[in-house]
């Protein structure tokens, strides 16, 4: 029956198209993660700040007409026992001027530990104008047992900061990444996996 055969071939075509659609959505999901990061970078949606910012301090032209309050918050994530706080709760800065603040951290355990601080800026709209020229959050902190440290952070608030933002809060969450760093070293082959390690 040719009618049946024609119908069957139409069904196969439809199924083929629908499978492509499923495949397309799978690709879309895979693309979602980088797309989300890109979207956040453009909009400052999740308050993430960028990487190291290059800036010539000699050419700084502070905007004396505006004073922005920058608050510092620190907290340690669950399971992280280090002491961690800023030297002061906040500063008033002019946009365009370079500023420096240091953070105190201490490993209170008797083991070598690796920490990683993750910054977040509120309001999110300020994130893209909050530039860090130097930050401990760009790298891991390896602290010996009982070791303490003053960690510097240099930042500059961009001129382009929207006029309605008068206060910015910068929060650092300190995470214990000892396990995953060791894992990465193991898998990179630099250290042979020790028995019972």
């Amino acid at each position, binding site marked *: 029956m040719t009618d049946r055969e024609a119908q069957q071939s139409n*069904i196969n075509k439809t199924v083929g198209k629908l499978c492509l659609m499923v495949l397309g959505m799978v690709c879309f999901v895979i693309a979602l993660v980088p797309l989300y990061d890109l979207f956040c970078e453009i909009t400052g949606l999740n308050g993430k700040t960028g990487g190291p910012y290059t800036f010539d301090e000699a050419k700084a032209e502070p905007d004396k007409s505006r004073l922005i309050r920058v608050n510092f918050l620190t907290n340690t*994530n669950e399971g992280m026992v280090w002491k961690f706080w800023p030297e002061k709760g906040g500063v008033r800065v002019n946009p365009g001027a370079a500023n420096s603040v240091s953070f105190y951290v201490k490993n209170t355990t008797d083991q070598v530990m690796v920490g990683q601080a993750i910054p977040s800026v509120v309001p999110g709209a300020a994130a893209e104008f909050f530039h860090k020229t130097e930050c401990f959050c760009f790298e891991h902190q390896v602290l010996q047992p009982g070791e303490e440290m003053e960690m510097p952070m240099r930042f500059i608030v961009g001129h382009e900061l929207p006029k309605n933002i008068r206060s910015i809060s910068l929060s650092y969450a300190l*995470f*214990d990444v000892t396990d995953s760093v060791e894992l990465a070293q193991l898998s990179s082959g630099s250290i042979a996996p020790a028995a019972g390690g």
Partner: protein
Amino acid sequence: MSEVIHADHHDDHHHGPEKGLLRWLYTTNHKDIGTLYLWFSFAMFLVGGVLALVIRAELFQPGLQFIQPEFFNQMTTNHGLIMVFGAIMPAFVGLANWLIPMQVGAPDMALPRMNNLSFWILPFAFGMMISTLFMEGGGPNFGWTFYAPLSTTYAPDSVTYFIFAVHLMGASSIMGSINIIATILNMRAPGMTLMKMPLFVWTWLITAYLLIAVMPVLAGAVTMMLFDIHFDTSFFNAAGGGDPVMFQHIFWFFGHPEVYIMILPAFGIVSHIIPTFARKPLFGYSSMVYAVASIAFLSFIVWAHHMFTVGMPLAGQLFFMYSTMLIAVPTGVKVFNWIATMWRGSMTFETPMLFAIAFVVLFTMGGFSGLMLAITPVDYQYHDTYFVVAHFHYVLVPGALFSIIAAVYFWLPKWTGKMYDEALGKLHFWLSFIGVNVTFFPQHFSGLAGMPRRIPDYALQFADFNMVSSIGAFIFGFSQLVFLYILINTIRSGKPAEGRSWDGAKGLEWTLPSPAPYHSFTYPPEVTDAEMQGQ
């Protein structure tokens, strides 16, 4: 037996079902598979209902009486997952299997073997998921929305079972959807143009596209969870540069269309039942089709209204608020059309019609509380309170579930060839109607007063509302046993039903004898305008 009004085209390879239990394992018949789906979803409905009653028993009074908070969390989580993925969705797929081939005049689904597979995956998926409740450390306890990192870093060990169960459910849904679309697009009887299709078929066509679009997103979300848990990635782990809020965006990009997956087929069902018992053609057929398509489109651009409180730019809040409110327009068109269909009709109030009218009234109430939740500034107060619980139960229980029950009463004579007991049906309706409102209406008040959801204990001022709510839940829960009794009673000893079981019923399925023969429409039927909803 009532015999055959319109003699079906019997041909030489006509044969009935095989005998024995293996019939159900090997079957590729759309009616058998529809029956399997429906009984499976009913079983899951009872399991999910028992979990709900455990929740309501614990919340009957403030303080902890029966269960511990950890177990309470497992109850809320599994109640949600089982009802959404195990009860409502398979029930609609079962109805689609039974009805779509008969309504479009096709002999069977386009891909009968895949149809068998997509059903038989489900018992394994839910077996896996429910088995975690008996494991050391317990089952999923992170809410049906399984926000990371609660569902990754802080999840019980059994979470991997949950992840694979969700993968299986997704695979089953995608296969089912492909099958439904292939059937509708290629197997309609000659003369049935798209704009003549019955609305149940239309709504399922659009629903199936939604499923194909979002089920891979859900699979992606749980796969990322799997990688975060076992392979040391950091998609949702801030310590490794990931972002927990991204989980919520991905989840709700799936989750909001999912909400409409659970309601669009209900719209289709009600659009069959109301014209039948009002004895008038459906008012505004084409606007119904366009309204469903608009709702489906809008469902993709409103997801972040579930997460106003996680923080987003003002422009985002405004966009998601207004786009959400826009959904009220096509939904309003539908409600208007149903009421206009009843206007000056010769209405009678058999059980399916009672459930359908209750659907229109109570779903509209759920829609209005949805509009309230859409308003960003006040959502900060309503977020994660019992007001949200009341809202989504009003659209899911008297919404989706009532439409499924209405459909079962409406098409039961066609499926079994027998008529249910009308008096018992009405008893079931009134118990359910009163039970549902007594359960969920007070939750609006406790929510507005600030009672948070998913908490096993509460402040004393919420005690009265919760006690009322629990009493309603037990009335509603036990009245579903009446439903089970009615079904069994009908199948075993119902009075014979006619081919056109309701005198206002239109559609190709009613031109078949009751019960519908095992093989129907081996040759395509003639499509007449008198039987079609569209013009």
